[in-house]
């Protein structure tokens, strides 16, 4: 007998993500999900962002990594609540991983929760976590061909942060092409150019982010 099913295979994840989002909203927390390839500077961006928000906004962090707790240790030094998730080989975070650690976060005391996804330009874009906004980080040394090679992540993000602009004199990267292709894929994308090493451009990014956090 033929049965018509028509169910999205990611339905279970999307359902849990929607529940997470409800819990975050009830607690008055704005949630961003930061995605990038490995080594683009996600944790450095977090450190700079946390420093800019110090004393103004109460931040919590979830660190997603395949293994290790190096990133969480870096964030912990800044004196804010952080939880490390090790996916044990898994290439992305999913909604259920976030759900399982909600009890370990001081939700009532937070204004902004930043989730640092596993370093990977493909899979994290497919799994909703319960975030309000996806932010993509691309270091310019990765090359200007990335938007068209990994279109999904550019399409799913509200902001694109181009990091390591201090390296511009040493690369052949075509910044205009990155902008043009990214905006072709996603005309609403907000683009920032920063250097987490020198601090250039960080203020513009954090001012913009601040406008979403209550």
């Amino acid at each position, binding site marked *: *007998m033929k*049965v018509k*099913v*028509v169910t*999205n295979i990611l339905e279970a994840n999307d359902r849990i993500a929607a529940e997470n989002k409800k819990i975050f909203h009830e607690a008055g927390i704005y949630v961003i999900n930061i995605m990038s390839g490995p080594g683009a500077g996600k944790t450095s961006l977090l450190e700079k962002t946390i420093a800019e928000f110090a004393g103004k906004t109460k931040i919590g962090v979830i660190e997603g990594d395949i293994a290790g707790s190096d990133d969480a240790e870096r964030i912990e030094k800044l004196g804010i609540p952080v939880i490390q998730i090790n996916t044990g080989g898994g290439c992305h975070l999913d909604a259920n991983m976030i759900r399982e650690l909600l009890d370990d976060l001081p939700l009532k005391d937070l204004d902004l929760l930043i989730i640092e996804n596993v370093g990977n330009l493909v899979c994290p874009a497919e799994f909703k976590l319960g975030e309000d906004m996806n932010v993509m980080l691309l270091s310019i040394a990765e090359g200007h061909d990335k938007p068209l090679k990994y279109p999904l992540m550019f*399409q799913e993000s509200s902001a694109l942060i181009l990091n390591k602009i201090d390296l511009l004199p040493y690369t052949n990267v075509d910044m205009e092409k990155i902008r043009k292709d990214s905006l072709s894929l996603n005309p609403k994308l907000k683009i920032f150019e920063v250097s987490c090493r020198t601090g250039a451009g960080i203020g513009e990014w954090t001012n913009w982010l601040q406008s979403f956090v209550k």
Partner: protein
Amino acid sequence: MHEVSIAQGLLEIAIDNCKKQGYTRIDSIKVKVGKASGIVPDSLQFAFEALKTGTMADKSVLTIEEIPVGGFCKECDKKFSVDEAYVISCPLCGGTSFNVETGRELNIDEMEVN
């Protein structure tokens, strides 16, 4: 890259549906995978074959229909589809005002149970 977890989700939904209808064996499952979904059909097929063993889908055949990225161009008023996993301009007129309508599918479409 995570086709195993997608195949696991697919199997769970299929088995769940089969049980709900009061049947005990899945003969076939048809899924639609968009070219922009990030899923590689061959990897999904491989993962499914490995995971179905010992379940009520043990003897089932998985058919994957790949759906191209396509949409409707508001400038030339025509439907289009492209070979790439993205579209930045209409392949018919070069226009940049369009709606993408297909290519992100990751759905179980239908299945045969017994």
